[in-house]
């Protein structure tokens, strides 16, 4: 009964910490990490009309963390007049990707079929990644809404990865690994990633080896990117809540250990 009570107090405490800190509109001044700076500089260096492929490889569950990253990257790309091919190798990422792409395109007055397209979802991601290196039309003969790719002016000169400057995989799991292992290793395609914070360490070896170009990681990465863009968004807005939750967990660990050592010394004396 006592244990259950403590658990409820911990749960209520976390809820309170997150809700209260989210209600306070405070933003940290985020200094961009080298990785985020590298992503930003790369997109900044692309010429007008360069083509970037953005793959929404995530589930709806990670949307609060993934969406700010996706929005920051899309805003930067559209602001630079970069052309975007959207797609998804995760069924749930399809609707999310299409919605986000249209939302940001609307903000910058971009037109579907001329400045961006959305190819939709393809099951069996490995064969899709490999197939895109041979022919995009073979893997996606039609776009998300069922229009032939040949009817879209945007796709006139785009055949395979050769016309794509960078693939950006926005993921909450290991889909980016497959982009690296098949898109990069087989076709030499540059890969960049927008990842949830929990996944960042999994990709460190690929970053160190240069197989993965750079990463925008977690809500912190999104906040840093937003500050580089000079466009405040949900990343910066959520940083206080995330920081508070981290501090709350640290306090819980410290209290737990104090209780543990106190009980141990009592038992020792007893």
């Amino acid at each position, binding site marked *: 009964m006592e244990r259950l009570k403590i658990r409820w107090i911990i749960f209520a405490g976390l809820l309170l910490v997150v809700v209260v800190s989210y209600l306070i509109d405070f933003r940290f001044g985020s200094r961009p990490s080298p990785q985020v700076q590298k992503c930003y500089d790369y997109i900044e260096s692309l010429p007008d009309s360069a083509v970037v492929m953005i793959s929404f490889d995530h589930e709806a569950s990670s949307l609060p963390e993934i969406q700010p990253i996706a929005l920051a990257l899309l805003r930067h790309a559209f602001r630079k007049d970069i052309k975007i091919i959207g797609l998804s190798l995760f069924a749930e990422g399809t609707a999310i990707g299409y919605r986000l792409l249209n939302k940001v395109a609307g903000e910058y007055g971009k037109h579907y079929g001329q400045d961006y397209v959305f190819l939709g979802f393809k099951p069996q991601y490995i*064969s899709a990644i490999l197939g895109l290196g041979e022919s995009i039309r073979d893997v996606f003969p039609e776009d998300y809404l069922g229009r032939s790719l040949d009817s879209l002016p945007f796709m006139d000169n785009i055949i395979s990865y050769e016309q794509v400057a960078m693939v950006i995989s926005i993921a909450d799991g290991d889909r980016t690994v497959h982009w690296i292992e098949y898109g990069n290793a087989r076709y030499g395609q540059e890969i960049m990633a927008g990842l949830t914070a929990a996944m960042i360490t999994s990709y460190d070896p690929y970053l160190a080896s240069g197989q993965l170009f750079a990463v925008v990681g977690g809500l912190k990465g999104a906040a840093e990117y937003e500050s580089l863009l000079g466009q405040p968004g949900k990343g910066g807005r959520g940083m206080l809540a995330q920081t508070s939750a981290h501090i709350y967990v640290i306090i819980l660990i410290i209290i737990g250990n104090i209780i543990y050592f106190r009980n141990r010394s009592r038992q020792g004396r007893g």
Partner: protein
Amino acid sequence: MATRLPLAICFIFGLVMFLQYFSGHPLARAAYNHILDWWQIIFAFTLLVGVAAFIKSSLRKTQVKKDAPYALIALAGLILMPLLAVIDGTDIDSPFLWAFENMLAPLQATVFSLLAFFVASASFRGFRARSVPAAILLGTALVVLVGRVPLAESISELFPKVTFWIQNYPSMAARRAILIGIGLGSMTTALRVILGIERTYLSGE
């Protein structure tokens, strides 16, 4: 025959896919592209098998009183979502996208966010410095936890630097060892399957 035929198919396709990687010959490229197409087609059929299995299992659950409401909701979702997509498309203002964004996405986010509560509870009850290695692990976790928030830079410049060092040296060394192990294991398993030594995919023979 029932065993030899799948083993032969597996050997031939494994060998072709292995050899074509090293060849730029048009014939090898054509074979590769055909196999990629077939891969997609076969996978589409496995999705159908998955849907059929899900329907079968849900129908069985409707017979059990306490599971019945959940099974019925799951079946309704399975039927309604494709129906909405077929009737009114999947464009921005479609009912399909509305249902996805206002039902599925919040439900999934809710379930996922429960994890934060369990992490908080587990950190209080389980994360104890019971021994020297546990104390080192605990100390490292605390430094990384602090180092991953912007507040750390205001406390001390050292926090982000130490976090960076932990991620790039001890953590990366362990991660690389795991990845190399996985790579070698995958190669061995692939060779065993191609050569017909590993046959568990043939009903555990």
